[in-house]
Structures are given as C-alpha cells and as structure tokens.
C-alpha cells in the first residue's frame, strides 16, 4: 500500500475510534443523567457533552464561550507526566518489548528525585537537574532487571515488569513510613523539597500568568524532539525499530539484538524516571504519593494512540489530558460521574488496539493498490511478456 493511503487509513481509523467512543460516552451520560423526561435528560446530556468537548479550555456561561488560559495550562500540566511515560512506552514497545514498568518507573523516579531534592543541597538550577537525572538513571538501572532476565533467561518482560511495579511501590511506601517520613505532619509524606530544587512555574508566558504550569512542559517538548530524532534519525533508534518489526531479520543483518533490547528498556526506564522527577519538582512541595500514580498506564494508551512514534506522543497526551479535563468539567458543571473518563478511554483504547478494526477498509485499499501495481507492471512488461510466450 502506498504511504499516502497508509496515512489516510490511520487518520480515518483514529477518527472513527474517537467518534465511536464519544457516542458511547454520550449514551452513558444520557443513561446516568438526572431528569424525569426524555427532553430533560437530553438537555442535561447536551450540556455535559458541551462541557466535555469545549469545557477544557473555554468557559461556558450565559453570555457565550470565552477562552480561558488557566484551563489550557491545566491541560498542559496534565500532559507532562504522560508525555514522559508515553515516550518511555514508545521506545520499549517499538522494540517489541512489552515492558509495563513505566508505571513503577515514574513513581521511583519521582521518589529518587524527591530524596535528592530534600537531602542534597545544590545551587538553584543545577539542583533540579541533578534530581531529575538521578531519578532517570536509577529507574533506567532498575529496568535492567526485566531486560536482562528477558535476554538471558527469556523471562517474560511483561510479567516481570508488572510485578516490579508493586515491588517498587511497596519499597517506597516502606521508606516513606520509616526513614524518610516527616513525622510532624498528619499525612504520610517526606520533608519538603529544598527551594533550590523546584522547577519554576512558566509564568512568563502571558496566557499562563495565573497558572502553576511548570517549565516541565518545555522539558517534555524537548524530550519529544530528542526521542523523535533518536527513533527515526539515529542508528540506535533504527535498530530498536527493526528489532521490533523482525528480530530474525535484525539478527541476520548483524545487529546486536540482545544489547539493543536491553538498551531500549534502559532508555524507557530513564524517560519514565526523569518524568517522575519533573512532575514531582514542578508540582509538589514534598513526596506524598502513597500508591502508583497511574501515569504509566496512561502512557501505554498514549504510546498506542501515537503508534509508538514519539512525534505523535504530544498529540496523544494532549487528547487524553483534554478528555480528562473535560470529564472534570462535566463532573463539576453537569453533574456527571468523573469515572466516565475511564470508560471513554477504554472504548478508544479498544478500537485502537483492535488490529482488525476497519480491516476490510484496509484490505480494500491494499487490493486497490495491488491492482494498480499489476496494471502498471502489465503495461511496462507487455513487450517482455510476449517474448516469453
């Protein structure tokens, strides 16, 4: 199939998945909407859908619809951790390694960064950098566990990393309760981060003046660019992708398959960990996560929506953040349960992940292309064909 048709297909497929998910959402909202008559329910549903679709960045009131920078900033802020976990999952899934450790990874990175932020005084700027790097590096090293077990002993990286998430979580909870607990507080949390470690808010940009959006979003964008180049313009990213497509081919071509598989998971771990640090230092005064934050799971959705392509990660993360904010808005202004987002996400995920969704349409495109090619070939080889007869 031609590249153009491939792209058209992806877009149609994505749009269809989203449309179906929204329809399902609408139906569910309608069912759960307050109201006695059909009409009443319908108007509640319409209001809710309006909040879901435009609420995340516009304020809707009697006088009309008005753009609101703070809401957009919230959407951006929500994107920061999921961009990082999304990138992390992209790199690992591209190598055909179904490592689910981004979830524990982001928590671990956040915790390590927090410890460095509390106990290792350094000059402003440098401090944040060291925190983030420490979080990333430690997480990258921890990912060696599933990676090496996979390469050396063929242990399923999926099971291993999944279990690892809980090991990480419980170790962190233990440390938070013991050595690193701030006993003066009513809640289980660490001591506050040193000021020098904090990521400043992005208050220079005029539309975000009143928001708490940190410089983390800028780092996230840089990470996207770096990973985009890494995956599509460097020999390592190239090898990761080739191994993901056909490992036998990669081996036969002379690539160091084991090494690259390990490398992809170290990088995946680093990204998740660094993302955790950035999220922590940009948003929280001290470490108080008592459970897995869920960003890793969202990262999987992001990566699948983005087709494991880093360049599409911000789009996918924006879409999910927008949807999340929309659901918050629905909950606040239209009285719709916020849990609905999980269902909407689930439906979209289902249709994206379903390989044969719209496969007939795809087949028709393939056949069309093949027919054109055969016709072209016939035309060009007419002479030669006659000779063979």
């Amino acid at each position: 199939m031609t590249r153009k048709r491939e792209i058209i297909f992806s877009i149609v497929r994505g749009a269809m998945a989203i449309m179906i998910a929204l329809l399902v959402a609408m139906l569910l909202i309608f069912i759960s909407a307050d109201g006695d008559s059909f009409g009443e329910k319908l108007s509640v549903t319409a209001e809710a859908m309006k909040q879901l679709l435009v609420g995340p960045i516009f304020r809707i009131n009697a006088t009309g619809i008005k753009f609101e920078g703070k809401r957009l900033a919230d959407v951006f802020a929500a994107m920061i951790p999921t961009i990082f976990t999304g990138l992390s999952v992209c790199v690992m899934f591209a190598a055909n390694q179904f490592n689910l450790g981004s979830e524990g990874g982001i928590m671990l990175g956040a915790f390590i960064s927090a410890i460095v932020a509390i106990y290792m005084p350094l000059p402003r700027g440098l401090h944040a950098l060291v925190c983030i790097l420490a979080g990333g590096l430690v997480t990258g090293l921890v990912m060696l566990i599933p990676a090496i077990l996979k390469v050396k002993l063929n242990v399923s990286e999926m099971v291993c990393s999944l279990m690892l998430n809980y090991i990480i979580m419980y170790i962190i909870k233990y440390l938070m309760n013991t050595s690193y607990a701030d006993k003066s507080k009513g809640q289980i949390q660490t001591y506050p981060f040193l000021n020098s470690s904090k990521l400043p808010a992005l208050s220079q940009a005029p539309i975000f003046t009143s928001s708490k959006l940190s410089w983390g979003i800028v780092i996230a964008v840089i990470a996207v660019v770096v990973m985009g180049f890494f995956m599509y313009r460097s020999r390592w990213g190239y090898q990761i992708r080739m191994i993901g497509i056909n490992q036998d081919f990669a081996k036969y071509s002379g690539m160091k398959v084991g090494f690259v598989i390990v490398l992809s998971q170290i990088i995946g771990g680093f990204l998740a960990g660094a993302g955790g640090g950035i999220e922590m230092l940009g948003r929280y005064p001290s470490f108080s996560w008592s459970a897995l934050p869920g960003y890793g799971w969202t990262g999987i959705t992001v990566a699948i929506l983005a087709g494991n392509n880093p360049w599409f990660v911000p789009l996918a993360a924006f879409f999910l953040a927008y949807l999340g904010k929309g659901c918050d808005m629905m909950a606040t202004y239209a009285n719709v349960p916020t849990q609905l987002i999980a269902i909407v996400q689930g439906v979209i995920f289902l249709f994206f992940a379903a390989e044969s969704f719209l496969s007939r349409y795809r087949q028709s495109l393939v056949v069309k292309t093949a027919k054109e090619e055969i016709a072209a070939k016939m035309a060009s080889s007419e002479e030669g064909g006659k000779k063979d007869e």
Partner: protein
Amino acid sequence: MGDGVNREEYIVQMKQISKVYSNGVAANQGVDFNLKKGEIHALMGENGAGKSTLMKMLFGMEQPTSGEIVINGETTVLSSPSVAISKGIGMVHQHFMLVPSLSVAENVVLGMVPKKGIFIDKEKAIEITRENAEKYNLHVEPEMRVADIPVGMKQKVEILKALVRGAKILILDEPTAVLTAQETEELFRELTTLKKEGYTVVFISHKLNEIKEITDRLTIMRNGRSMGVYETKDVSKEDISRLMVGRDVVLNVQKDPAKPTETVLKVRDLEYVNEWNKKMLNKVSFDVRKGEILGIAGVEGNGQKELIDMLFNLNVPDAGTAEVNGRSIIGLPQAKIREMGVSLVPEDRMLYGIAGTASIEENVISDRCAKKELNNGPLFKMSEIHKLSEQLVKDYTVLCKSPAQQVGMLSGGNIQKVVVAREFSNDPALILADQPTRGIDVGATEFIRKKLVELSRSGVAVLLVSADLAEVMELSDSLIVMHNGRIVAYFRDAETLTDEEMGEYMLGLKEQTPEEIRRVCHD
C-alpha cells in the same frame, strides 16, 4: 460413452485450477487433478512446484483464482476446511495441528466434544477414540498427552482425527518426512488397509521408493503446472525423476569461463543432527574459490538449509570446521561474519530477508547502519542514506514508487531484489545464495542470475544453493549434489551434465566414489 464412465469413476476432479497469491506469485497454472475412489494417488514435485497449494485448495484453506472443483459429480465451492470436511475430505499437515497439552482423545474429538452437562465427557471421548483406533487399525494411546507421544503416533492421531470427522478422502502432506523407516512401514500398512475399505488417499511426497511401493497412480507437478497423470506401474523411477526435476525454460545467461584462484570458503567435515535425531549433515566438506560459482543441487530437505544456517551462525554444527579466508566462522556473531565479507541471500526472504513493515530504504541499510559513511555523530546522514537507497533501487531495478515505500507491499520478485541489492552491494568476498530466485517472476530471476555471474567474474566466491535444476546447472561453474545430508557427487564442469544424470544423483539412485567427491576440496 467412455467419457460418461470416467465422470462416474472420479470422486474428485479439479479442472484448470489456477492460483495467484496476493503477493503476485502464481503457484498453480491450469492444473488438472483427479482422484478415483479407493486409490492411493501420489502428488509429486519439488518444493515450490505447487503441490501444497493445490491440496490446500482441495481442503478449502485457499480459494482458486480460477477453475472448477467437482466432488462426486457435483461442482463444489470449498470455502473453508469445515466445508471440505463436510464433503468427506480430510488433510494431515506436514506440521501437525494438534494441541500438545491435551490428551490424544481430547485432540481426536476437538470441535465435536461429547458432553456431560456442561463438562467434557472424557470417558466418552476415550471410548470414541479407542473404537475408531480399533476400527481403522491405528494404534494410539487415548489417555496420553500429545506432548508425550512419539511423532509416529501423532501422525496417527491426525489421521484418526480426519477419519472420525467422516473423511473418505485423506490428503497426507509429506507424511513420511518425519518418520523412521519402521514407522513409515507401519503407516503404509495402515494406508493399505484404509484403501481396501474404500478410502482414497492423496500422498504428497518426492521420495521415489515410497511412491513406487504404495501408490496406484501419480500426478507430477513442476513450476505450478501438471506434468501429467500416470499409472505408477507404468513409469520408471528415472522417468519420474526426469519429469519432476527437468527444466522448463532455458534461460540463457552469458558466462565466461571461470578462472578460480585462492580458496575463500573452506568447509570440512560438518556434521549436524537435528532435533528429531535425523542426521542432516554428514561429513560435508568442500571449498569455494574466488571467482567461481559452486552450485549445490539436490532435492530440498537434504541438508542444504542446515549447511547454509551453519555458515551464517543461524545454527551450530555438532562437529566440523568452516573458514573464510583462513579464519573460522563457526559461532561468530553475524556482524563479525559480515565484516569478513560474507553475504547471505536467505532462503526464507520473509523471515530473514526483510522487515516487512519498514521502508525499502530501512531494509537496504540494515547491515551497514553503524557504518561511518552513513552516520554523523549520533545521527544518521539522511542525505547519504537517501542517496544510497535511491542508487540501489535504480541499480537493481526495484519496481516501486520511492525508497520510502513499505517493502512488504512489493511483489515477491521486487522484495527479493531489495534483499539482493543489500547483500550484493556491501562489497562481499563470499556470497551465499540460498534459493535466490525461488517463486519470483522471470524478469527478476534473470536479473538476479546475471548479477551473480557478474559478481563471480569480478572475483567474488559464490555458493549457490538451488532446488531449481536449470538454475543450478546453468549458473554454476562446478557442482556438488547433496542427498541425505551427504555430498554424493562433484562435477568439476557443470556444463557437461544432463538432466537425467543429475536427477539420478539428486534422488539418491546413483553415487560417486569418495575419491571423486573429495576433489571438491582443493587442497
């Protein structure tokens, strides 16, 4: 009148069957095939001749592009295996389709499970299996797990499975390939019993002795066409071999006489026993010299694949050595082997040759992605890569819109050109070409053959493995023939040989003396 009788006589008639796969390979072209009730009918031909495709269509696994299938006098569309089964057709595949973790009985009744309430009635399943095993004289252990039973019994389970589902026509795809001599004998006894009871058997094989022993009639296929139907008693083994491996089209490749110089590849006493304890390589020794094409002829499955795998470290031999320019290559990583100038055009191009969903460009740089010329610090020199891929697409006349096109969407011939472009352009000292033109169109075939000759004349050592007799005889300067994992003949000059002679060596009817064979080692 005779016509009318014939129509009655045949229980299956496949008329003018053609099959073109979606990748453009024409596997069957106007094939006629028929079966009489109660016969054992051999379907012969080399790999890639179209036997399996034809039988898959009879079993409903593939649909013919054109042609007609008549079963019991009725034109039938076999849209799926379940339709074929309902028409009394059963197939035993070469690779068994059994669930290893289930018991024999559970496998036999799979899909038609006797139930007791919501549970499987295991007793009943075992009973059914036992009854049928006795009825058809196929000895199996109903309660054992399939994973724990020997290969011969697995095959019986497969046959039972088909019979229990009401098959009157049994298709056996190379049933003896995995069996020992004793198991083969037992199978033949069982098939004879079935025949007496009025069952019809299609027996796919290329083993002449077996065919002569057990079949009544045979259909020979070559290059997707039927070479005719014969009464087994009327044709000699030599006739069969000639019909099977003879050449169709003489492609003329211009070739100067070879001027071989020093030895590049030196293989000594390679031995390998596969996982089914079959000796695939038995003391294989030969040399390939700079500037010559050494061909390996032989019916597929006689150790050629294993040999190539050893030379590219895709498998490890049990004993023996292989050296390229004096350095051992056994067990070296592929990157090192490639560094020494070895290129491989793999037999299975979809498995090893390409990354299907990647672009042509990404496929031609896979062996050199870390090279200095293509990298600028941590990043690729994209302009160089574009230049390289455009050049290769042009030089190797790959029919595509641009190098950015997905390689898996190309036709078989063009995919092979992409593989060849990569393998021939990395300045090789030794090219291992394993079935380089299998299943691709005439144009691409001719192109690849010409390239091979061109490279050999420019001083590359070429080892050519091909089941295509015409190819291996025309291209090779010298030839060795493999049979049963051994080299059975060496011909210094490939041009003096006749097809008949070759056929006899390939099918194991003749063999040279060890001294004659030893001449391939130019010590």
